[in-house]
């Protein structure tokens, strides 16, 4: 026994070396690039071509058209996140309380596909449906003599169109993240509440609602971050012209702008990170909190 403890004590420092590859990898391929963003964001090219520290990039990123883009990104993402959270919650509840195990399996797998890998393919699906030469566009034009864009206000390549497509991967994402919470609502709670005289709405108002609320709010934060960081859909639909921050970063990095824009891109990236980090932490916090209630 004694020799075992001694051996373990002696081995302890060595086994920590086993973690070197992991921490090394994350440092090189994640922490280093992140540090470079923070560093570059505050590097300004001086008159003689020498770089110095300065806030010029940051003030550029937080002013003018770039600020508008950030604002656009934020409002678009907020609207999408709230709508998707509400609709996703309703859908998740309907699926979770339905009988079919097969239905639940189909919904959870297709939700996983759309939420994680849907961004780009969905854009093309909607181009085919309601794009300039889309099936519905042509159909409405030929049969009804109406233009989807001009008469019905449905423009896929606009901000509204992009938001519309965002919902197609945000709602599934909501279904994915809220389903465990809904399944965590114990049937006993409803029955106990009913037995004590509660009506349906009273159960939701006093018992299920408060129990789900942290998870729901956290999910909105997560959905917001996902929409906020999303690049593929908007890029594919608008060819990079929509005024949102991810596309502005792309623009700043692409060669067709002035030298030194590289650091502006870093400043834009930094501004995104500053928005995303607290919200992701909020999500984790809320999830941890409600998992104490809903297991």
């Amino acid at each position, binding site marked *: 026994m004694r020799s075992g403890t001694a051996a373990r004590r002696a081995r302890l420092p060595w086994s*920590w070396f086993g973690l070197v590859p992991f921490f090394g990898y994350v440092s090189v391929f994640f922490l280093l690039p992140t540090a470079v963003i923070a560093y570059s964001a505050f590097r300004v090219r001086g008159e003689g071509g020498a770089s110095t520290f300065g806030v010029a990039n940051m003030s550029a990123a937080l002013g003018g058209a770039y600020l508008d883009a950030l604002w656009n990104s934020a409002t678009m993402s907020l609207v999408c996140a709230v709508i998707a959270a509400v609709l996703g919650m309703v859908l998740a509840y309907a699926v979770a309380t339905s009988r079919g195990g097969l239905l639940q399996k189909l919904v959870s797998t297709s939700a996983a*596909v759309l939420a994680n890998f849907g961004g780009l393919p969905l854009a093309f699906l909607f181009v085919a449906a309601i794009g300039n030469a889309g099936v519905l566009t042509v159909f409405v034009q030929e049969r009804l003599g109406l233009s989807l864009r001009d008469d019905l206000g449905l423009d896929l390549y606009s901000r509204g169109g992009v938001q519309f497509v965002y919902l197609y991967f945000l709602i599934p994402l909501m279904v994915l993240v809220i389903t465990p919470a809904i399944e965590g609502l114990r049937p006993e709670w409803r029955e106990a509440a009913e037995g004590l005289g509660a009506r349906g709405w009273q159960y939701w108002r006093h018992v299920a609602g408060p129990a789900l609320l942290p998870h729901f709010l956290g999910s909105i934060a997560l959905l917001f971050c996902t929409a906020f*960081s999303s690049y593929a859909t908007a890029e594919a639909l608008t060819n990079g012209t929509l005024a949102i921050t*991810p596309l502005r970063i792309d623009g700043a990095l692409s060669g067709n702008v002035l030298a030194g824009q590289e650091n502006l891109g870093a400043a834009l990236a930094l501004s995104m990170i500053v928005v995303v980090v607290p919200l992701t932490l909020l999500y984790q916090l809320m999830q941890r909190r409600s998992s104490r209630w809903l297991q």
Partner: protein
Amino acid sequence: MVAVIGAPVAPSTVTPTAGAPAPTAAPPQSRGRVRRAGPPVRFWRGVVLGLAGLYFLGPVLVAFWFTVDGADGPSLAAYTRIFTATGFVDAMTSSLLLGLISVAITLALMVPTMLLVHLRLPRARPYVEVFSLLPLVIPPVALVVGVRGVLGWGNGSEFVEVSAVFTALQDKSLPLVLALMYVVIALPFTYRSLDAGLRGSKVTVLVEAALNLGARWPTVLWRVVLPALRTSLLNAGFLAFALVMGEYTIAKILIFPTFPVWLAQSGATDGQLQVALALLSLAVTWALLLIVVAVAGRTRKAKP
């Protein structure tokens, strides 16, 4: 030798209810559903599910119609000309290779790390968890800025060896730098999948039982640990692979012609083909996921 009977091993999905000795006389129907609330609830559920089905399947069907709607009636031509499309095979090969490389790096890096943490260094768990989940807080579109900075520095290095390495990483036909980054982006998913697997299958107890019976470490790892983790390894591998096959942001901004980048550009020359491939990529990913779920379900059932 003293035989140690370990705690009973529960299948990963069963959530024990605080050691209840015997189930209540539960009717074969789930207790959560109340028959009385039948018609209205079932009606609204039907409405919601119906609308959702229409909402999600509608665009897919319309898009499918778009791909088969030819000048002389429906045809599957868009699907048959995929392999002859310019650049498709190169882009697909590149993406497939990147996917396999990413999965290999992911598993080679994370499986030993997670085993070490669970079996030997539980104290290191919080650190590994935080590091693994960190990539969630940096959007890929932001991370790529930093990556470009590092690449730019390496490309311009005065040391020939360094710039040679960086050139190799950015080879257009097989941009290894992407695989390296994708491992990082997949890290949160990998971590969660492996962590859930390790906890669910109670690997620590299994290992102690095996060691107690006299097994050596290689045997323990090969015969006990890896089989117990099969499902979560499959899951982690699938997630990493699917992520690589669909990742657009980083590849597009670093201008590497992977499959998604090629797909985005293909619309300019052949809209039908683009939509057909978009549909296929969703369908294939979904089918793969269904297989993973089915395999996971079977191993779960096989356990007593």
